[in-house]
């Protein structure tokens, strides 16, 4: 159990500052997901929390105790690595019980804790195998077992599922969610996969280029992204961004079409309109805000993605539910769900309506 606080955390390599003024409070028992594109600093941040990477500035506290210089072994955190990092010369049981072995826990305690974890993860029959005799999914489970056995105050996950195939990834995602429900421990999870972030997190931290872009629940990020980066990073397919200028009774698009979107106070600053593909609809030409031609129609079964070309604006992606009978090259009219649009200023910040 741990309440983790990051106050003005900074990281630099020599004279190169890669991260600064990172502020974040993680409540006891919370599932926090750090998400962002490669190189955004999410793994570095996790490694600083784990103690594997020195913190260059600021305070890192756990339950109010400053931990900046505490070595990893005394932080009472368990970590699951992307590569699993199982000890190749130890069998599954010894891998899982290694932390207890190091702490010189009595033999019976070790055996019973390992057996319990193995049972939870369905590894009971594999305890005598070496890591090289296991499949990817089983290795992943052992890595999680190694963390569970310790009963740590916080779990750290560094892209734990990215080496698994798609089906296994979904299964393990569920397992991690169940694990969190059962243990109610603080968990910090790093991923670049927004689906993992949205499905697992109590709160998501979106990082880009060493800066926190936004912290919020999955739905907050989806409904009220703080800026264009978050808007485009969260949600799949990606949000459409259309250039606009203020017009009579609302805004005007680049091709001259007027939309009655209520402008907030700083109306003159709105320069872009964001609208998610699922908030656009294909309609009859006379009811449409935009008209163009369908350049590519992707039938996904549950959804149909229509990549439309709108003269004067460019590519617009529309997502319709279910099968949508449309062929490439057909003319389309597009209606915008005006209540669900987002306005951005020239710096990419969202203007609250």
């Amino acid at each position, binding site marked *: 159990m741990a309440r983790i606080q990051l106050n003005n955390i900074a990281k630099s390599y020599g004279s190169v500052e890669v991260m600064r003024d990172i502020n974040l409070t993680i409540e006891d028992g919370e599932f926090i997901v750090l998400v962002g594109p490669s190189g955004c600093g999410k793994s570095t941040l996790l490694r600083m929390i784990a103690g594997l990477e020195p913190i260059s500035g600021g305070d890192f506290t756990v339950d109010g105790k400053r931990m900046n210089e505490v070595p990893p*072994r005394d932080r009472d955190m368990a*970590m699951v690595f992307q*590569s699993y*990092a199982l*000890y*190749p010369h130890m069998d599954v049981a010894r891998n899982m019980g*290694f*932390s207890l072995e190091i702490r010189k826990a009595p033999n019976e305690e070790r055996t019973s804790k390992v057996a319990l974890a193995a049972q939870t993860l369905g590894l009971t029959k594999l305890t005598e195998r070496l890591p090289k005799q296991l499949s990817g999914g089983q*290795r992943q489970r052992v890595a999680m077992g*190694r963390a569970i056995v310790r009963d740590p105050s916080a779990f750290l996950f560094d892209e734990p599922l990215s080496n698994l195939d798609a089906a296994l990834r979904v299964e393990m995602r569920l397992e991690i969610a169940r694990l969190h429900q059962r243990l109610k421990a603080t968990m910090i999870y790093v991923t670049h996969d927004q689906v993992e972030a949205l499905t697992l997190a109590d709160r998501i931290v979106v990082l880009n280029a060493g800066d926190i872009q936004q912290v919020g629940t999955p739905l907050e990020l989806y409904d009220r992204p703080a800026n264009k980066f978050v808007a485009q990073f969260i949600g799949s397919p990606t949000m459409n961004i259309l250039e606009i200028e203020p017009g009579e009774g609302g805004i005007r698009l680049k091709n001259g079409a007027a939309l009655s979107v209520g402008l907030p106070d700083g109306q003159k600053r709105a320069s872009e309109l964001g609208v998610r593909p699922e908030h656009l609809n294909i309609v009859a030409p006379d009811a449409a805000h935009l008209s163009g031609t369908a350049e590519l129609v992707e039938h996904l079964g549950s959804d149909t993605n229509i990549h439309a070309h709108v003269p004067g604006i460019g590519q617009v992606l529309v997502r319709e539910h279910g099968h949508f009978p449309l062929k490439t090259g057909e003319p389309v009219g597009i209606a915008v769900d005006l209540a669900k649009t987002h306005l951005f200023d020239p710096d990419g910040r969202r203007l609250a309506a």
Partner: protein
Amino acid sequence: MSALRRSTPLAVTGKYLALAFYVGFALFPLYWLAKIAITPDKLIYTEGTALFPSKVTFENFETVLVATDFLAYFKNSLIVSLGTAAITTCFAAAAGYAFSRFDFRGKRLVIALMLITQMFPLLMIIAPIYKIVAAIGLLNSLTSLIIVYTAFNIPFATFLMQSFFDGIPKDLEEAGMIDGCTRFEALRKIIMPLTLPGLGATLGFVFTAAWSELLFALMLINSNDTMTFPVGLLTFVSKFSVDWGQMMAAGVLALVPSCLFFIFIQRYLVQGLTSGAVKG
């Protein structure tokens, strides 16, 4: 892989023929060594290049073991080679680990200097080495050989060990440190067992190098008590004749420790010990 590669009987035969030819080529000198060792002295010249002597004798071995100082040379060589291998491997493992895992000021410079030492012929520094060893009063001692061999072998052995450490994912010791190890404990309990093949290879390499070194042994040693085996071999060459049979018998005996050593470390040389550590 193998299922993809269609091999015809012809290709298989060709492959084995090539291998057989190579093995024959590589082992023929050893065969010749053994052959002359068991050939009676008077037949060596008369039978010339016959592949097998018409009469076999073990007299040469007996003479070498009983009538010469061979056993003393052998013991000296063993002390020097084992000493050199052990000390070099310790240093090389420590240095290789540091080069592999840490970034520190001057790292590139040290690596460059170590490389440079490997780039010029040893002959150039024989005289200065002799002067140094003489000045500290270590001439005619096995210690001097151990020191000199260790110094010469450390750079290569370090690079060898570094490449073994590089092959072990960093994640493993980080996982160990999170699991409660100090860095040293992680090194000892996790990295060390995985480096055994590397340690074995390095030990073997250095042992063999020290075992067969002649130049410095010849320069730094001239008393019969401290002669190593390669120097001792030269005692079979006298002013007027060469005792081929005894020399070759001694040579065969000298192969024994090397062979034993490699049989012993062979199981550590088997690769793939780290497989399964990370995704595969």
